[in-house]
């Protein structure tokens, strides 16, 4: 596995853990979060939860990991269909840009 793939996997694990306050205990709920998990459809979350999650990400990773800014470049249907893999890739890209 490449270093890049390891970093992305690591980010996916962290993103999944950070989602717990919004979704609930993932083990108890028996939810397996993958790159294909849809934020709205699969997790039953709403746009306002994305705002909360943007705050959680910025608090964990730093203010340059600005999910709201990332989403403001997207169309409505892209936001509705947002998948955890999209968020993971965005975070990994920001982290890589730090060098």
């Amino acid at each position, binding site marked *: 596995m490449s270093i890049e793939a390891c970093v992305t996997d690591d980010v996916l694990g962290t993103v999944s853990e950070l989602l717990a306050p919004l979704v609930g205990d993932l083990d108890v709920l028996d939810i397996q979060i993958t790159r294909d998990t849809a934020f709205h459809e699969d997790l039953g979350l709403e746009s306002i939860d994305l705002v909360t999650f943007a705050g959680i990400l910025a608090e964990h990773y730093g203010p340059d990991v600005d999910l709201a800014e990332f989403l*403001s470049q997207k169309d409505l249907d892209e936001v509705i269909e947002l998948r955890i893999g999209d968020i993971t890739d965005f975070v990994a890209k920001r982290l890589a840009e730090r060098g």
Partner: protein
Amino acid sequence: MPTMTVNGLRTNVQLASAGSGVRTGETAVFLHGMGTDSLASFYLTLAPPVAAAGIDVISYDLRGHGKTERPHSGYTIADFLADLDDLLNQLQVAQPVHLIGNSFGGTLAFSYAATNPDRVRSIVCIESEPATEIWAGKMTQILDHTVNFLAQEESFDWIEANFSAHHRRLARMAADRILNTSMVRDVPLGPLLTWEDVERIRCPVLSVLGRYGYQSEDLEALTSLLPRGELHVFDGQGHSVLVERHREVRELVLSWIARQAP
């Protein structure tokens, strides 16, 4: 981000600024619409670019919406305005602000400017009109229709079949708010503005609307009443201007605020 107690209610507030970038000293306050709306529709569209342009941004969930507390009653326009006033006081915003309102949020912006002219630098209203008697009649009609629609279980099946499961959930949320609070009864009560009140709003107003939106019949006439009004109409567009045309709205808003420098 902060949960503040605003006018006695736990209120979800999101602030954004240019951070280490250059700040203009201007402040924009985003006021979202009623029902399914929340601060997300601004926070995920306009807030980042407006903040990046050096404008301090205040977004919050209106009472009964998003992650703000939902009292059973207390949804007159006066209640919403008291919230805004208390929020600006607590955040110690001394300079007049740009009020940017979507749908019902724009209606609140007009009422706030009418009663607090010294606190408002300009208004950007997206698919909105002031709370006149005409507005109250229209709102009553829309809300009555909405109540009847949401009271029928099969309506949610229809929404999912014609839109998506996501829209079904949004409709459920709206139903919960609309059917289990006094919102529908309270909102049209105002207090309403007379045409003289509207004419006395002296701050610049940018009205943004869809050709087929809720204001398509009377906003041009209304805009002519406002002394410093501008109108931008999106052809082929319905009520959801903010989320469906957010890139164009962003350019309009940034250009508008830049032109309002004192």
